[in-house]
């Protein structure tokens, strides 16, 4: 029998290779069907601002084993309110070392971290912080003037 092949259609599928070394039960990862904790899109899809999945919109793995689209986590860490913490576990977010998937991003994240550190050292970058400090100072003055002020109430205002 002779077979003539006229045409070949190749179909490829790909997924990010994410190390799953959390068998020690320390993490409840992956019960959310592998979606980015920030944008809720699948790891293998793009972040909301990208059109095509792949190297341009890659995934990164944190030291804490939480994964995000690189654009999503970068955008979060770039806000003053993030304080550099992982949105999931509130530990300092660091890229996990020795992973091919992270390697190309290491420089970018290091640079961001450095920039954040110098920003917060010099000034109070956050408006809310500034407001809170002003309010606390105003309250201190008030307290000095009026010793009989309701202490509990004042605390309440500071908490807010």
């Amino acid at each position, binding site marked *: 029998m002779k077979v003539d092949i006229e045409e070949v259609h190749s179909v490829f599928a790909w997924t990010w290779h994410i190390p799953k070394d959390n068998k020690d039960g320390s993490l409840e990862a992956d019960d959310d069907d592998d979606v980015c*904790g*920030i*944008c*809720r*899109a699948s790891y293998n899809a793009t972040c*909301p601002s990208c059109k095509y999945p792949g190297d341009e919109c890659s995934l990164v793995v944190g030291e804490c084993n939480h994964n995000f689209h690189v654009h*999503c986590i970068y*955008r*979060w860490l770039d*806000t003053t*309110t993030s304080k550099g913490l992982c*949105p*999931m576990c*509130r530990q300092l977010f660091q890229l996990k070392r020795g992973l091919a998937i992270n390697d190309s991003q290491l420089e970018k994240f290091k640079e961001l971290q450095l920039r954040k550190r110098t920003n917060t050292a010099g000034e109070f970058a*956050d408006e*809310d912080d500034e407001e809170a400090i002003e309010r606390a100072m105003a309250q201190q003055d008030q307290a000095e003037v009026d010793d009989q002020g309701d202490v*509990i*109430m004042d*605390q*309440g205002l500071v*908490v*807010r």
Partner: protein
Amino acid sequence: MSRAAKEYKTITKVLKEGDEVYSQLIVGMEPKEDLTRWEALIRGPSGTPYEGCNFRLHLSLPQEYPMSPPYVKFEPYAMPHANVDFRTGEICLDILTKQHWSPAWDLLHVVQAIGQLLDEPVSSSPLNVDIANILKANDMNAYYGLVHYYIKS
């Protein structure tokens, strides 16, 4: 697809399938006009003076959402609660502040946290001083009475 659209899908699914945690609390939740404005109707939790009543929440998503928290308010003049401004409906809840918000949370988490706040008012950071003072004095009769009075009027 945007984050809000993803949440819309999840919320519709959760409410339709009757999730154990959320269906206790949420009567309905849907976007108004576009996905940046939402309304939710929540049930007063049992064992609280709010039991038997429903309360409307207005949620609006800032442009930076989920990097910034949603703005959430009760309907004005409808929620007598130690941590809610009765006149405006403004809510004092740590996770709704920029300092404590995390993009890992979503609208369902927020509504759930507000449900929890109804159950456990925090009298140390009041927006309604009258109710907070009654709670501090631990006068449960007056607490129920005052809340009911507000709700009925």
